[in-house]
């Protein structure tokens, strides 16, 4: 035959899972088109029961142990066997290179991470706002698994009123991504749910590889609720973990994260209450001080006001001391002034009367006929005593009496001349 020694062959396992309880495992390796996923080549393999233990041992001792199953890429060392009765060429598995599978898984995972990171899918759920008090939790895990019990008991331990809606979900195997997606969809429909938790216990890389699913990641990105995950492993973080809002390594850790949120909220609540109380106290103290200041201001102002009145009163008091006295002394002065005026007036009056009398005497003196007679004038009367003023009063022969200053002369009219006075006579 043309294949005296063994060959290394790589490919994706197909038809392995149906062999579960059989001693010899017959399956296939195939090569797929990287884009279309169409099968390009296929060949049958067998692991004989005698070799199975050896292969399993190698896988177990490998770092990040995995087990053989469908859809994983493997590299086997095989002997080529031709079975003439069936005319079939079959490869008999002798050895396995686990590093190849792990590398493949890691490579595929890295490619997916890069793609999902670049298109923003990984960050979408992280942008959702965390509920302040996430007490209503949708739980995606296998019911009654260790993960479920760890998660629930940790929540119970906290004593907070968590309400958990558990959706029993496949947590390993090929059907996991679809079931997880369905579970996310179902839980999202529950009203008042605060967050969804996806958790399971740790496992091999191959066990967890179903969580490196683009399908799950896209579902998480589209989910309206924050998704918390606790799937991963000390070393292996699944892409589901990367896409989650928050991830923790174990179910217990994710439960602690939730109780931590509640605790933080309660603490902040207490702090706020304290802050409010302190703020109020501070404010009251401040207002109290202000009121006291106001009270003192009131006292000072009224003090000033009353003081002013005091001063006004003092002015009036001062006036009352002096005003009436002034009034009386003014009255006295007026009396004195009156007396003086009176005396002066009387004196003036006497003086004036005196002058008047003197003038009068002089006038009467001037007018006296006696004085005129002395100056040489005489008064001539008729016999009846009437004054002779006109020639018309007498005729020739009329008797006349003439008074002189020192006596009287009696005579008769001898001749009458009419007209003006004749100085020549």
């Amino acid at each position, binding site marked *: 035959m043309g294949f005296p020694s063994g060959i290394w062959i790589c490919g994706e396992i197909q038809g392995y899972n149906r062999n579960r309880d059989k001693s010899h495992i017959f399956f296939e390796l195939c090569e797929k088109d990287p884009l279309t996923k169409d099968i390009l080549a296929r060949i049958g393999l067998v692991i004989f029961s005698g070799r199975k233990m050896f292969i399993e041992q190698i896988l177990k001792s490998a770092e990040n142990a995995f087990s053989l199953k469908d859809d994983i890429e493997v590299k086997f060392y095989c002997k080529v066997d031709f079975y003439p009765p069936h005319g079939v060429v079959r490869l008999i598995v002798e050895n396995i290179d686990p590093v190849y599978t792990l590398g493949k898984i890691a490579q595929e995972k890295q490619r997916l991470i890069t793609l999902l990171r670049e298109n923003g899918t990984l960050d979408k759920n992280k942008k959702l706002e965390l509920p302040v008090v996430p007490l209503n939790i949708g739980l995606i895990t296998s019911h009654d698994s260790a993960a479920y019990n760890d998660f629930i008991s940790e929540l119970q331990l906290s004593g907070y009123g968590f309400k958990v809606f558990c959706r029993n979900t496949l947590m390993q195997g090929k059907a996991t991504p679809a079931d997880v997606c369905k579970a996310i969809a179902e839980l999202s429909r529950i009203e008042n749910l605060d967050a969804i938790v996806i958790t399971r216990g740790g496992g091999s890389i191959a066990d967890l590889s179903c969580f490196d699913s683009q399908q799950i990641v896209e579902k998480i990105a589209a989910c309206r609720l924050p998704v918390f995950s606790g799937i991963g492993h000390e070393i292996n973080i699944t892409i589901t973990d990367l896409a989650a809002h928050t991830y923790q390594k174990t179910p217990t850790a994710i439960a602690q994260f939730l109780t931590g949120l509640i605790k933080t909220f309660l603490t902040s609540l207490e702090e706020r209450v304290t802050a409010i109380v302190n703020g109020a106290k501070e404010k009251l103290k401040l207002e*109290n001080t202000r*009121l*006291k200041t106001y*009270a*003192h201001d*009131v*006292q000072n102002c*009224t*003090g000033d006001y*009353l003081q002013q*009145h*005091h001063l*006004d*009163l003092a002015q*009036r*008091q001062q*006036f*009352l001391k002096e*005003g*009436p006295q002034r*009034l*009386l002394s*003014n*009255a006295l002065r007026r009396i004195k002034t009156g007396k003086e005026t009176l005396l002066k007036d009387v004196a003036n009056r006497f003086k004036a009367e005196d002058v008047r009398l003197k003038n009068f005497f002089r006038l009467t003196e001037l007018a006296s006929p006696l004085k005129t007679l002395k100056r040489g004038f005489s008064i001539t009367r008729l016999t009846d005593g009437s004054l002779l003023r006109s020639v018309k009063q007498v005729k020739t022969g009329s008797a006349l009496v003439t008074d002189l200053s020192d006596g009287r002369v009696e005579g008769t009219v001898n001749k009458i001349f009419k007209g003006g006075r004749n100085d020549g006579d």
Partner: protein
Amino acid sequence: MTEIKYSKAIKKLDEIISRIEGEEIDVDELADNVKEAVDLLKVCKNKIEKAQLDVKKVVDGFTAEN
């Protein structure tokens, strides 16, 4: 008899003062008027002192309470 108000007392006092100042008061009535003025002065003074004391009492009471 109700107690006379401060403002009324001051008004009356001022009236008397201005009449004394203007010498409109009969000398016969001067002494009576001055006596009335002094009485009013006393009333006003007492009122101010009482108000001062009351204000102090109220403010002290308030600040002691708080």
